[in-house]
């Protein structure tokens, strides 16, 4: 079997005359962590729902674990695990009882189930919480339990739809260690996220906008081919005012808040820094630093989305 774990070609979903997903193609290999990024409403969740066999595509093809999502949704569902931020755990059951319940739903054989539950508890670092009520667990722990539930039947492919939304940094990190563990074991992981530091950790990412994939590459590759020239990092007083000012300054293509400072893209890298510094000084915003910066994935994301918006993709 040399087939990819997930193969998507020309996948399209229309609701009436609205194309939620249009002509999307990509492949995810075994053991790969693949990120699906994009603004809300870009079509990420609709894509995932089609690949899980929950929603039938209008046209195009999706194959998961070697099975066609439109024609063999049952076979697909047996081979995948799905977890979203809106996971449904039973809060008045214990950790272990939730796992038993989901093991039953996924049809895990009785003799195999206790071994799998042990595995899930260990993977999620919840062994000591085995008998605790799920409702008492912090969100980050519940999220790992939900992932454990979705993995009991040893799926070949997992779909994680914003699994870490609203979760604190420490729990988010734990969660990613689990994802890496799965990938190492050969599971294909397809993840959506709005955290750009998480996106940086994917092997490859696809950026969706207006139902289409507008970029697909490794994070490094994306950074190389985009915005590299003319990006400046600025530290100054009142960054909010600085952004508003710079957005109206001639020679500035783009300005936005970045961390505690401002990221500015100028048309002429050679003279841009001086221009920005002068504009800020004239406005009394006292720039303490204006330097060329390396583009982060967030810069790339914003640049690509704004270009797509300007092009009127939707």
């Amino acid at each position, binding site marked *: 079997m040399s087939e990819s774990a997930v193969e998507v070609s020309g996948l399209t979903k229309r609701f009436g005359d609205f194309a939620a997903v249009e002509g999307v193609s990509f492949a995810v290999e075994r053991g790969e962590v693949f990120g699906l990024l994009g603004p809300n409403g870009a079509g990420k969740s609709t894509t995932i729902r089609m690949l899980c066999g929950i929603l039938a595509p209008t046209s195009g093809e999706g194959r998961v674990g070697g099975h066609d999502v439109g024609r063999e949704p049952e076979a697909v569902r047996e081979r995948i695990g799905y977890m979203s931020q809106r996971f449904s755990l039973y809060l008045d059951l214990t950790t272990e009882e939730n796992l038993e319940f989901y093991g039953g739903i996924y049809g895990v054989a009785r003799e195999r189930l206790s071994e799998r539950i042990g595995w899930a508890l260990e993977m999620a670092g919840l062994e000591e919480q085995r008998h605790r009520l799920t409702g008492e667990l912090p969100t980050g722990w519940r999220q790992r339990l939900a992932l454990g539930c979705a993995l009991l039947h040893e799926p070949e492919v997992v779909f994680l739809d914003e699994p870490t939304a609203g979760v604190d940094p420490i729990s988010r990190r734990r969660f990613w260690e689990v994802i890496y563990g799965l990938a190492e074991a050969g599971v294909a992981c397809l993840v959506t996220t709005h955290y750009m530091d998480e996106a940086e950790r994917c092997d490859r990412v696809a950026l969706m906008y207006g139902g289409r994939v507008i970029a697909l590459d490794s994070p490094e590759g994306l950074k190389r081919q985009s915005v590299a020239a003319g990006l400046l990092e600025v530290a100054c007083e009142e960054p909010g005012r600085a952004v508003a000012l710079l957005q109206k300054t001639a020679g500035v293509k783009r300005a936005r808040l970045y961390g505690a400072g401002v990221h500015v893209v100028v048309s002429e890298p050679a003279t841009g820094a001086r221009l920005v510094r002068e504009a800020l000084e004239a406005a009394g915003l006292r720039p303490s630093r204006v330097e060329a910066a390396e583009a982060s*994935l967030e810069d790339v994301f914003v640049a690509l989305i704004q270009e797509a918006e300007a092009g009127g993709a939707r």
Partner: protein
Amino acid sequence: MASKRKRAMIEARGLRMAFAGLTAVDGIDLEVAAGEIFGLVGPDGAGKTTMMRMLCGALTPTGGTARVAGFGVLTQAEEVKRRIGYVPQRLSLYSELTVDENVGFVARVHGVKGRLLEDRRERLLSFSRLGRFRKRLARDLSGGMRQKLALVCALVHEPQVLLLDEPTTGVDPVSRGEFWEILMDLVGRDITILLTTAYLEEAERCARVGLLHRGRLLAEGRPEEIRRELGLELLEVTCEPLAKGREAAAETPGVRWVEAFGDRLHAATRSASEVERPLRAALEAAGVRVTSLRRIQTGLEDAFFELVRRGREEPA
């Protein structure tokens, strides 16, 4: 910012909230000055939402006092309500109403009507760039637009204080940036903002932040003060393979901890200059290819890790 001492618009003294068997907020002192933007950061279950709910009067504290906009949250609840805008984590919009109707509804609840309502709605919707979507149903808005609409609704009675509970969770980076530009604009108009967030790079933009953990403030102050007081120096490592690099770095003497940040490692040390060389040697000895190793500024996320570690409590 510290030079011009302004009056406190939010003041909490020994604020506590104990639910049966759980102390969600355990004696918190907090002060936010007029026109200041303050970020409360912390893990799930740290007490962020409970704090917000006590400050807006939705929850009665089991101990301590709080004053908002100069009035007691418990004793003068009506006065407080008139002066605050609260955006809860779970959105409070009416999904079957249009953008216009949502704003109008909330305005009338606050007694804002007629010409005044029309003027404010016009101004707020254009200010938040929602003007084009006035006739759209709230349920058909994107996540980022919905958050902006909730903010507009919270502003319609012109509050002095805004309480925003995780306003940007689940919102993409482009919309998050726009939302922050709006917040910065509001602060420029002397509105006081207290917000909670799980995005630490956003917290860096706040004038002051509080790191909340298990109902207590682990640290509080301007982001650069918090960084400075930790006495931590960070080394950033780009290397291949990352997992192996992490192991080797963690075992290097002088390295307090190592965390992966995106595709890089952060190694926390007491003295970057002393650890840099042994760290490089240890990585190379382990067969890890180092592409770059440099000192970087300590981020709030690094500070957060360090403080939680110092607390030596079980990590969430």
